């Protein structure tokens, strides 16, 4: 069941480092007739709401969050703004918008926005988390990734990566940036803002990244070998953000998986930037997609079917300073151990898998 069909209004988060082109992209989005039924919230850091002025003429459904940044101080304000938006929609003061876009400040950690939706007892019955869209500056992006942990986290958490200012980039920086983004976030499509064929509606298209066909694509859930980021000076990045993948050939026990992941996220949630994948569950014909951001796990999605005879479960983790090999070992020990009477030969085969 898609998010639209579920009756929940998706909240898409537009994030990206300072000066990476969030407002420019937002203006483009709002000028597109396909986004006419979109409500917008803009978060401002500082006294003067500059971005608000830049897009003020777009519509009257916009809310400006004045104080602090979304990442910490205004979660209450964000919840109140969303409630007010919904209230005005229901009372007919606003057109029945079908989605919300929140533009965050350049230094915001996107996670608290998503957790606010989930934690608020009113909001979680009306809204759901949509896509995280992260803009990355083609000119300064690499340097920002080398220097700022926030930039890494914003890229790692993205469902869609938009590279901006590609017309200004020099030489092979674009390829290097692309490679860096791919190691940070092997699963998110990387789009170029300047691409004339860029379909803006794909930015907020829900669950397209969970389709059965894309799960087997080259940029899908099969990411490459575990990799640590190395900055331009050859030193391992302080954040040590890495991505690992797990492939499991045997059906996974859902109950054990749930217990394991809740335990893992409880202890290490802030260092697990993303978990995403599809699972072949015991006793279940169709695959189930799971998708989590730090402490928050979205409601699992039952996919229509497997794209091929391959029934391999695949999970991608994006880790901040955690030992990927240990995580793999833990996954096998906890999650697959629950399978009843699993022969030891099967266990050996699983343990040897990637």
């Amino acid at each position, binding site marked *: 069941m898609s998010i639209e069909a579920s009756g929940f209004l998706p909240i898409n988060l537009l994030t990206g480092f300072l000066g990476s082109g969030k407002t420019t992209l937002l203006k483009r989005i709002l000028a597109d007739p396909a986004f006419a039924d979109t409500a917008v919230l803009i978060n401002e850091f500082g006294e003067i709401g500059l971005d608000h002025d830049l897009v003020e003429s777009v519509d009257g459904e916009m809310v400006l969050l004045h104080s602090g940044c979304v990442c910490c101080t205004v979660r209450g304000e964000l919840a109140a703004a969303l409630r007010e938006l919904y209230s005005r929609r229901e009372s007919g003061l606003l057109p029945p918008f079908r989605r919300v876009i929140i533009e965050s400040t350049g230094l915001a950690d996107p996670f608290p926005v998503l957790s606010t939706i989930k934690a608020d007892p009113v909001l979680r019955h009306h809204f759901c988390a949509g896509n995280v869209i992260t803009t990355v500056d083609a000119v300064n992006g690499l340097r920002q990734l080398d220097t700022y942990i926030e930039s890494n986290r914003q890229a790692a958490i993205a469902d869609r990566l938009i590279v901006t200012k590609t017309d200004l980039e020099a030489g092979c920086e674009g390829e290097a940036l692309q490679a860096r983004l791919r190691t940070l976030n092997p699963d998110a499509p990387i789009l170029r803002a300047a691409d004339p064929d860029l379909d803006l509606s794909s930015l907020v298209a829900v669950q397209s990244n969970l389709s059965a066909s894309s799960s087997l694509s080259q940029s899908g859930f099969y990411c490459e070998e575990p990799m640590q980021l190395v900055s331009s000076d050859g030193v391992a990045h302080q954040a040590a953000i890495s991505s690992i993948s797990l492939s499991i050939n045997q059906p996974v026990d859902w*109950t054990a998986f749930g217990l394991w992941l*809740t335990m893992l996220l409880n202890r290490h949630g802030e260092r697990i930037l993303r978990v995403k994948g599809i699972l072949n569950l015991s006793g279940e014909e169709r695959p189930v997609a799971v998708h989590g951001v730090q402490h928050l796990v979205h409601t699992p999605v*039952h996919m229509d079917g497997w794209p091929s005879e391959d029934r391999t479960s695949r999970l991608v983790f994006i880790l901040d300073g955690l030992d990927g090999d240990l995580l793999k070992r833990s996954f096998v*020990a906890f999650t697959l151990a629950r399978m009843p009477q699993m022969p030891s030969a099967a266990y050996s085969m699983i343990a040897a898998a990637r």
Partner: protein
Amino acid sequence: MCSLCGVLGGNEHWTDAAARPGVFTRNHASPDRRRARAERVRAANEMLSGFGLVLCDWQGASFVLSTRTGRSEIIEDLGHLWPAAERLVGRSCDPLDVTFISRMEARHVD
């Protein structure tokens, strides 16, 4: 469950949402839901035993997590299980702890 959550339909946790669409809604397939809860309790107790904790279902609505000395906490879903477990035992429950992993791996060696 707080009165506000009760009015609004109660809390739901992502771990409840397996394995077949519709099974874990509130109005259908009650036996399946009860069976799944029982399995959840059994699996949790296998992991909790190393910490001296026991989880019990409480009328299909909540869970009670207890120490061997009787200290208890009521939790609603698995999302609250591990923070409560850590409070009760006074140490972390870490699935990346090598000793803990080894104990779980040992279950395979029969």
